[in-house]
């Protein structure tokens, strides 16, 4: 099993250090849910709800978003330059040390 270290900062500012598997086709939204972090993942990972909106805080250059993701971010709030949808980030070995912060919940 291949693992990377990921840090997720929740909405209260608490850091969660998580070992994340890279060989089971898992994404960041699923990682959050699997670790009981408050991410709804309402649409099931289809970039259709923005409930897994997060900010990339480490220096990983992972900002090539698909049209579907950009479209969804257009309908989301609190969007910043480093915004991503967690469901669209597949956990892979080159994401070792990834740090991300959960975006505020919106109505």
């Amino acid at each position, binding site marked *: 099993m291949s693992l990377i270290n990921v840090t997720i900062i929740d909405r209260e500012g608490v850091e969660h250090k998580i070992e994340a598997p890279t060989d089971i086709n898992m994404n960041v939204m699923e990682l959050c849910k699997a670790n009981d972090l408050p991410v709804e993942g*309402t649409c099931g990972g*289809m970039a*259709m709800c923005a409930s897994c909106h997060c900010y990339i805080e480490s220096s990983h250059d992972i900002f090539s978003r698909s*049209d579907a993701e*950009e*479209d969804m971010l*257009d*309908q989301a*709030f609190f969007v910043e330059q480093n915004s991503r949808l967690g469901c669209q980030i597949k956990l892979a070995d080159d994401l070792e040390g990834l740090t991300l912060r959960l975006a505020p919940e919106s109505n």
Partner: protein
Amino acid sequence: MKPIETDIIIVGAGPCGLFTVFEAGLLKLKCHLIDYLPQAGGQLTEIYPKKPIYDIPGFPEILAGELVENLMKQIAPFKPGFTLGERCETISKTEDGKFKVVTNRGTEHIAPVVAIAGGLGCFEPRKPPIANLSDFEDKGVEYIIKDPEFYRNKKVVVAGGGDSALDWSIFLTNVASEVSLIHRRTEFRGAPDSVEKVMELASNKKINLITNSEVIGLSGNGHLKGVEIKHQTDGIISKEADHFVPLFGLSPKLGPIADWGLNINKNSIEVNTFDYSTNIEGIYAIGDINTYPGKLKLILCGFHEATLMCQSAFKRIYPDKNFVLKYTTVNGIQGF
């Protein structure tokens, strides 16, 4: 109008609600479905009809839309009733202990059993996080444009980047005295024709196009007078406005069901996994809308929940009848 009477009122016509009709039908129970969307199928039809689903037993791959079509075919022998395009608002008990469910249009439904298969809930407009937004709702802030004439000779600020924001901005140039369109980035995701038209109207100064921006504040005294816009590099722009129309699509909300007295946990209804009953006897919750330890939001789990729920519903409706499980392989399907 006379109330609609049936054995099971199913709130939500998604896959789980539809399959309930089949399992109830095998037990000779009649069903009537109510859904806020104008067609059956729930998310599958509304959000992703062309997406393939891979985890329906017996179907290595099936499009969401096809699954709904198949379910409709499967339940047709049991002649379900439908109330579509209406939202369930209230539930009450009748004198003889049945439930009465009334929609936003006043349609009344009466049955001894209610099965809530509401999925994610009702789809409602997404509201931007502006502190005093609710103060101006219907006082200058509208989430849906019903009658464009309402905006005649008014200053209107539209926010959003999708088709509805583009199309309404274009249309409102015919009636409003000033139209501004505020969008987070410079690209638009709407239809290319609409994007081109907006760009043309912007260059002719018919639309005041403000990109890389968002509305962050509202001001006025009893009615909206102005908006504050934050530009990514230029800072705050203040703008006079009679109306602010944020068009950020729809997101699911539990809606009026939240006030039905059910035990709710994180927007889901708590159930007993014995029969998916809620804390109110006679009301069940199945599919994505319920929660219990180990819950998985999968269509196939919803089918299972619907099946067990129908057994319990039968016993509630006919407490004295002995129930015999019938295998469809032996008897086939006997419709109504």
